[in-house]
């Protein structure tokens, strides 16, 4: 489902080169639940961004669903992103739309019938425990709520692949457990899940395959 072959990523900030990933190779099969861990700045977000083709690697190849992302045409990029649910680290909610509209948006661009949209959006909001906040705007949400809205948007399309970037980053323990439970349910429903987190204890608690990044290098792949 996912294959990285000797992938490196170097950001250029003016004349400064910031290495974010160095020579990373890995493979994630369909139906796996993978935890991507490492300290802040280790390159987790960068790796996920390469998977939904938000950016291209400086070196190496990225393959998702059997497509070489470096060779993907523009309109195929949109199609790729529609089959991947992403929980963004910074939520990335549309600012002038309510939580409901934000989640509904990804269904509307698919041309889903309106009646079905209402049903599915409320299902997704119930799963993340945000039903009561459906009419709130992003600015009115706590960071944790924003992240849950982002998760609801990511799962509402029931994508074959879910990428979650620090989805528990700003949550208390109870909420954390709930989100992890949600991810596990989605995974049990057949979705491949990649969860990025800097909280190493989460990786241990989940008892799933864990990839550890350190300064952009893949240093451990276990479980």
């Amino acid at each position, binding site marked *: 489902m996912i294959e990285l072959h000797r992938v490196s990523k170097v950001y250029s900030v003016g004349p400064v080169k910031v290495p974010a990933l160095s020579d990373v190779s890995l493979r994630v099969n369909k139906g796996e639940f993978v935890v991507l861990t490492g300290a802040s700045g280790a390159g987790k977000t960068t790796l996920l961004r390469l998977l939904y083709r938000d950016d291209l690697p400086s070196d190496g190849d990225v393959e998702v669903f059997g497509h070489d992302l470096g060779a993907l045409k523009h309109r195929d990029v949109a199609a790729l*992103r529609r089959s991947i649910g992403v929980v963004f680290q910074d939520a990335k909610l549309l600012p*002038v739309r309510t939580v409901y509209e934000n989640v509904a948006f990804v269904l509307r*661009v698919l041309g889903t019938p309106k009646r079905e949209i209402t049903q599915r959006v409320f299902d997704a909001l119930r799963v993340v425990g945000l039903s009561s906040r459906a009419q709130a705007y992003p600015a009115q949400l706590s960071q944790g709520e924003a992240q849950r809205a982002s998760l609801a948007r990511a799962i509402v399309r029931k994508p074959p692949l879910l990428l979650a970037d620090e989805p528990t980053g700003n949550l208390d323990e109870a909420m954390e457990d709930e989100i992890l439970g949600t991810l596990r349910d989605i995974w049990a429903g057949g979705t491949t899940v990649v969860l990025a987190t800097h909280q190493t204890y989460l990786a241990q608690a989940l008892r799933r395959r864990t990839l550890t990044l350190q300064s952009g290098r893949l240093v451990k792949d276990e479980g």
Partner: protein
Amino acid sequence: MLGFLIGEALRDLRRAGRVAVSAIVLITLSLAALGGFWLLSANLERAVARWRERVRIIVYLKREPAPAEAKALVEQVQAVPGVAGVLYIGKAEALASLRQLLGKDASVVAQLPANPLPASLEVTPAAAAATPEGARALVERLSTLPEADEVAGSGDWVERLSQWQRLLTTIGLGIGIVLAAAAFLTVTTATTLILHARREETEIMRLVGATEATIWLPLLLQGTMQGLIGAVLALAALVATHSLVAPRLEPLVSITLGLPDLAFLPPVNVLALVLTGALLGGMGGWLVRPGREP
């Protein structure tokens, strides 16, 4: 999907706010100017067409021919190219119509020692000869008749009217184009503002898999909406002005131009105005498409 796109377009339109309002006002002005001149020129054109039909060339004869001669002459003139019809008017007939024209003053005619009016041929030019050149050529041809004394009436003034009408259309088009250019630039500005205001949103939309069409179709639509709203407002203004002014102007128009009424724009022009509006707005929205990501 269409409902979704229209919803997004309306959202964009609201975002452009006052600039969109300016764009709509400018579109309204340019289309109203264009439509106003069209309206005047369409009515002048009707007048020209009416007068063209009435253009007659009179061939005054040197002497009154005998009935048989007259019949032969009519047939001869009938055969001249560019002639649609010929009517022979004898001296007596001419006098009779003069008497009729004078009405109660007809007694003046009775005091005349002799009938001073010449016999004449009233020639109706064929449609092809009803142009200035055609009429002039026909007059020349008729002047070569040995029986002809003088040939009168070429419909020159009708042609001058026609020139005025064309001038009016051109002026209208000129003013319309200048205003339309301003309107177009304003639509472009409004769309650029929208694009700027929703930059972050566009970015997020792309990340969650919105196609480029979903991103720029609303922009195109909001531009088209500006144009359509402007066109509808311009038409409303034209209808209102026409229904207010036309009844007051009609007596004057009927005396000077011989038109019974001032007609509103024909449906083709109404349609053209609406399409021009939609096109102006649509193009403005289309030109400012968001750039693609790398």
